[in-house]
């Protein structure tokens, strides 16, 4: 009797596993050209796929923020395209957690593996300093993309968009949606998130700099920790604490989706904008009252990846060193120049891209 029960349950589990497998098999097709995703299988899979074409080419490593991050997956796809187009090989390392510790572990193993360049999307501005310098001493070129570290610890930062430009764009969006005056709030990621803090500071600075925004009032910066549940609580609290709130700006992809759902479910008149992924936000975009987000911004993560890959190859080949004023060609994207922003050298992809109800589906279908 007991054995029967056990075998019954086990077969149920297997059946469930098979169903899960179905889902996976179907998704494998569109993602076939993607860099191998799971944290530890990457090492073997990625280089093996390219040994034929590389022919003495450079080996580039990309350390993402963490595994299971769709945003990072797009970046990795873009980097892979560019690196392979230039005859190199890409290794993608997805740390198991979105922490600096996990990244340090990955970078250390890459140093002993002896790659030509390491690209990091940093989880912490300062904590990676020691290990990145260790990499530099080992003759490895170090660059950052999407999220930077201190300027001294890397050769160059591939920036999605200029910080001040993002701040200005988001502020203008809040100004526009609020109708020129009234209260707005910011829903951010964690209180330590490097990117979000820089953008929020830029928003504040832009607001102070121009009397045009005098009627606009930033009532609170709330932190949803990039967690749906906490972001939901925080959004609801904003609505409750500020009955006159007109706009919420969420410069984080998880936060904006959570806030969009809260606003839309409640039929709130508060409007939402910020930085979001089209695939996550498709449901919530529209100019009518039934939708919470009239427009939002982001950059093309695949192009950011392309530019990052080209920059990494140029560094590895010795075409550039990461100094301000150097120029290089990034494939189809055209020519780029390294610029100096407050003593830190950067390559800037371009202005943030605006997603509207009209174009959001097109981009979502592209996998963004």
């Amino acid at each position, binding site marked *: 009797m*007991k054995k029967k029960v*056990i075998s019954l*349950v*086990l077969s*149920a*589990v297997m059946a*469930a596993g098979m*169903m*899960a*497998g*179905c*889902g*996976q098999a*179907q*998704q*494998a097709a569109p*993602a076939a050209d*993607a860099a191998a*995703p*799971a*944290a530890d299988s990457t090492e073997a899979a990625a280089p093996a796929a390219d040994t034929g074409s590389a022919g003495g080419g450079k080996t580039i490593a990309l350390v993402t923020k*963490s*595994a*299971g*991050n*769709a945003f*990072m*997956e797009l970046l990795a796809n873009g980097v892979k395209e560019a690196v392979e187009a230039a005859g190199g090989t890409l290794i993608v390392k997805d740390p198991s957690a*979105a922490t600096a510790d996990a990244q340090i572990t990955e970078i250390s193993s890459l140093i002993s593996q002896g790659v030509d360049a390491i690209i990091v999307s940093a989880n912490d501005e300062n904590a990676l300093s020691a290990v990145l310098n260790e990499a530099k001493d080992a003759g490895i070129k170090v660059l950052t993309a999407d999220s930077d570290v201190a300027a001294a610890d890397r050769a160059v930062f591939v920036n999605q968009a200029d910080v001040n430009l993002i701040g200005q764009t988001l502020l203008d969006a809040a100004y526009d949606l609020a109708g020129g005056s009234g209260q707005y709030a910011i829903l951010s990621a964690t*209180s330590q998130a490097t990117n979000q803090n820089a953008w929020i500071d830029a928003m504040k600075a832009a607001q102070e700099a121009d009397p045009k925004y005098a009627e606009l009032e930033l009532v609170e*910066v*709330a*932190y949803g920790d990039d*967690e*749906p*549940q*906490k972001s939901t*609580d*925080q959004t*609801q*609290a*904003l609505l*409750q*604490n500020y009955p006159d709130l007109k706009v919420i700006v969420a410069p984080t992809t*998880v936060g904006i*989706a*959570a806030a*969009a*759902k*809260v606003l839309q*479910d*409640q039929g709130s008149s508060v409007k939402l904008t910020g930085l979001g*992924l089209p*695939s*996550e*936000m*498709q*449901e*919530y975009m529209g100019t009518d009252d039934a939708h919470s987000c009239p427009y939002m911004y982001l950059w093309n993560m695949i192009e950011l990846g392309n530019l990052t890959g080209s920059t990494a190859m140029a560094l590895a080949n010795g075409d550039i060193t990461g100094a301000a004023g150097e120029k290089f060609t990034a494939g189809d994207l055209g020519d780029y120049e390294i610029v100096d922003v407050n003593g830190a050298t950067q390559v800037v992809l371009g202005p943030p891209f605006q997603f509207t109800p009209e174009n959001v589906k097109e981009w*979502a279908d592209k996998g963004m």
Partner: protein
Amino acid sequence: MKKKSFLAKLTGSREVSLLLVLIVLLIVITILSPTFLAPANIAQIFRNNALTFVMALGMLCVMLTAGIDISITSTLAFAGMTIGLLQKYNVIHNTFLLFVIGTLIGVGCGFINGLIIAKAKVAPIICTMGFMYIWRGMAYVISNNNWASGADVAGFSDFGKDGSPGPYVILIVVYVLFFIIMKWTRFGRRIYAVGSNAEAARVSGINVDRTVISVYTIMGLLAGLAGVLSVSIYASAQPNMQYGKEMDVIAACVIGGVSMNGGRGSVTGTFLGALIIAIIAKALPLVGIDAIAQNLVKGIIILAVVILNVVTQRMMDRQNLLRREM
């Protein structure tokens, strides 16, 4: 017996002392944020924390047998990610079927936990720690770095939408069911018996192993259910969903007076414990505590409530002793 003083009554039941704590908490919060007890806000408290409420019941059963399960949010993520992907790739869109599949995955995960703990005698915290990584890892592997988002789970997410009765119905059903099971069924009594004294339970003819396997399976079932609920409520499935939230569930039980040593705890206490956790989560951003200090305050409140509970418990034990001496 009827002469029992008011004070004795108050300290005589942990549930009542918890209720007092809850009332004090609510008074403080209402002073700071007058609209806190508005019906819409109360509804949000239950909806936003439905996962904690549901999983706390399973944790109650597990802790009653002196065990613990820290793999629950990994099971949740595995089940949630699976049903998210089933929709993303247009395999299944039937809400009922998705609930069944997610819950069954949970049952499977929990059953394996129970089997290893009962038969191989692995300490619960070690075994479930292993599965914490394994199920979370499975969620990552099947997700293949993809998320299921709002558009993918459209339709299904109507079940958990703000204003839909779905999550509330599930909460009421599981709580009523568990209240009955734990109080009035032989199975419920067996769980208490195994937790109070496993040897005595064995001697009196209870199949201890089977009971242990059952409680972990129940825990898995509820974690799977919570996974489905999570996808429905937040309209999104990510492999890192609810990461670290198992501690909220354990905290809810501990606040609710469930003993880590087994044998002691109730559905009512668990409900109140989960409610306190839920109220804290909801109130912290509302009462104007600085965002970066919110976790600090949360920890202090949890500890304060637990200490208060321990003190009441001790007073109660002392009174029982006194009574016996007379």
